[in-house]
């Protein structure tokens, strides 16, 4: 137990500072996000993620958004296990034929008003996988998308920025 306490105090608060550019981006996005989240979502945005066919690259970076350094929860953003409580749907990947129904069902299970954010170049237009017998291409071909986050995969700060962009649309 003592080792744990020791490690906790040694680590201190790691949320920030990064290098200057990144730091500025995250805190700037963060403070704007916080404001919007307070104003429009009474302080808390619940996000449901659906991997609709991604290579797992975007998932890694979305997970990073929740780590101690990016720490999205400080802005009132958290990931929820159920679409029933979700305000925003994050979708990664080209939409595979085999995930289309599950994606639509998840969307339909969310209460309105709801936002959809497509993450990554694949979510935009199918990326390198394109459109084919197995891939329906970008998320926009299946659901109404409020914002796209480009990148392969986008960095955690780009993901935070994209979420902000979508929230502002409400």
């Amino acid at each position: 137990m003592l080792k744990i306490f020791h490690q906790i105090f040694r680590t201190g608060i790691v949320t920030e500072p990064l290098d200057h550019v990144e730091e500025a981006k995250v805190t700037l996005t963060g403070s704007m996000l916080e404001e919007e989240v307070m104003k429009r979502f009474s302080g808390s945005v619940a996000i449901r993620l659906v991997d609709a066919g991604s290579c797992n690259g975007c998932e890694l970076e979305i997970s990073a958004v929740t780590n101690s350094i990016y720490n999205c929860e400080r802005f009132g953003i958290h990931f929820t296990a159920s679409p029933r409580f979700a305000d925003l749907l994050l979708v990664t990947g080209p939409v595979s034929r085999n995930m289309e129904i599950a994606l639509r069902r998840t969307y339909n299970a969310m209460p309105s008003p709801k936002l959809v954010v497509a993450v990554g170049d694949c979510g935009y237009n199918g990326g390198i996988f394109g459109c084919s017998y197995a891939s329906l291409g970008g998320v926009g071909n299946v659901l109404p998308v409020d914002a796209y986050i480009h990148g392969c995969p986008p960095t955690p700060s780009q993901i935070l920025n994209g979420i902000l962009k979508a929230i502002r649309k409400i």
Partner: protein
Amino acid sequence: MNEKIQNLIRYLTSKGAVSIDASVNGAIALDVRKTMFSQAAKILKEADFRLVAEWASDETFFDRGFVVYAAYNNGSDYLVIKSEMPSGESSFPTLTKHFPGAYRLERQIDSLFGLNPGGHPDLRPWIKHEDWPEDSYPLRKSFDAATPVRRVERDYKWAKAQGEGVFEIAVGPVHAGIIEPGHFRFQAVGEDIINLETRLGYVHKGIEKRFEALSWATAVRLSGRVSGDSTVAHAVAFCMAAEEAAGCVPPERARYLRAIMIERERIANHLGDIGAICNDTAFAFLHYQFSILREKVLRTNLKVFGHRLMMDRVVLCGVDADLTKVGTDAILSEIKEISGEFERLVRIYEDNPSLEDRVFGTGVLKPEVAKALGVVGFVARSSGQKLDGRLQNPFPPYDKFVPRMPLLKSGDVHARVWVRIEEVRESFRLVKELLGELPNGPLVAGWVPPLPGQSGFSVVEGWRGEIVYWVQCAPDRSINRCMVRDPSSMNWLAIEQAIRGNIVPDFPLCNKSFNQSYSGHDL
């Protein structure tokens, strides 16, 4: 070719016509008659070979029909058995009765090629879900990749358990966390799992078909997106297969840089996963701590290689990244910083009874089961299997920089964590040594596409385990077929075996300790 292989070939020849196929590079390839395909498997099994991969190829463009391939390994020998089907025929003898690991590979061949593995015990569709028309076979040349596939009404026949108190839990494809989609169906009595059946294929996006439409250079980018967490290892594996087929050799400096990136990918993923496993025992503290370390590695990657996950840094016959003195120093000081931190966290892991209670004896994959199923990677090494692609197929620089292999026999969650802890330490050492001896010279050598009909076979040990590629060049020197075998394709079967008798709440923990790729499996 060593004596053991020569004896084996002589023995196979005595059983029927066998000839060495020189069009396959990177492994010894033997052509056998179709009837010998399964018999060869039996002989190889007796000689203690393990099944590495099984796949088919449509060779219409070479005026042949379908060809089935199976790759085997023993020690450092990789052997490919190849069998052409007489035109018009669409069945071949199953290998599943000799190697249970072939079970899903053959269902996949059946679903995507429409080639029937005669004698296979279970030919329900795999990857191709039940709502696909039965007669759509996407990997045949006659199938146009752009054709949308209509949905039909059909049911998937799940394994059923019956009896008093037996109930079913269906989970997925959409899971609670930030992870990939797949469906798990448990039959349980109370909390105890009596059977688990997985169904995958949800993220099938037609990767193997897509390869056939891309140029060689773009195909490298696609291989880097087969499984995003193993982007470097997959890209290296694809490039090595293509280089084998073409007879091109990347410069020495490029090979070192590839190995440095492979090891850094291993470190980043192991760090993240060790933490995530602790998180699944509700010990969030270590999760947060390990994710800080992982983030530090990714930041150094961005600074040094220009991409957090090092995507698209591997190119045909070389690399598209270089290390300057500044970059080398950044990596060395990062290792110095995080390795000390890592050791402190490992001591906390060892010291925590509540964690110990969850990880010891949970999700046991017995060594004999691991061997029978042909599992690979850290999962195999945690269940007593001496397998590491870097040792079996020591392509440079791994011939000079030999990793020490951690080996545990208990096969439980703890073993899988511990093997990965040891591997992180080993990768730190390898990266430091590789950096110390990084040769000077060019980063890329000239790339010329292979000659028509030539193919290349490659094996690369990614962080998850042995990644296998086989690439065949078409008559117009484009890609005729690219077979991808992610380690997950072998290891997914193992979780169903390891989970029996465990309690339902331990499933996420067991699953995380295997951490298999859905995308790499579904393709």
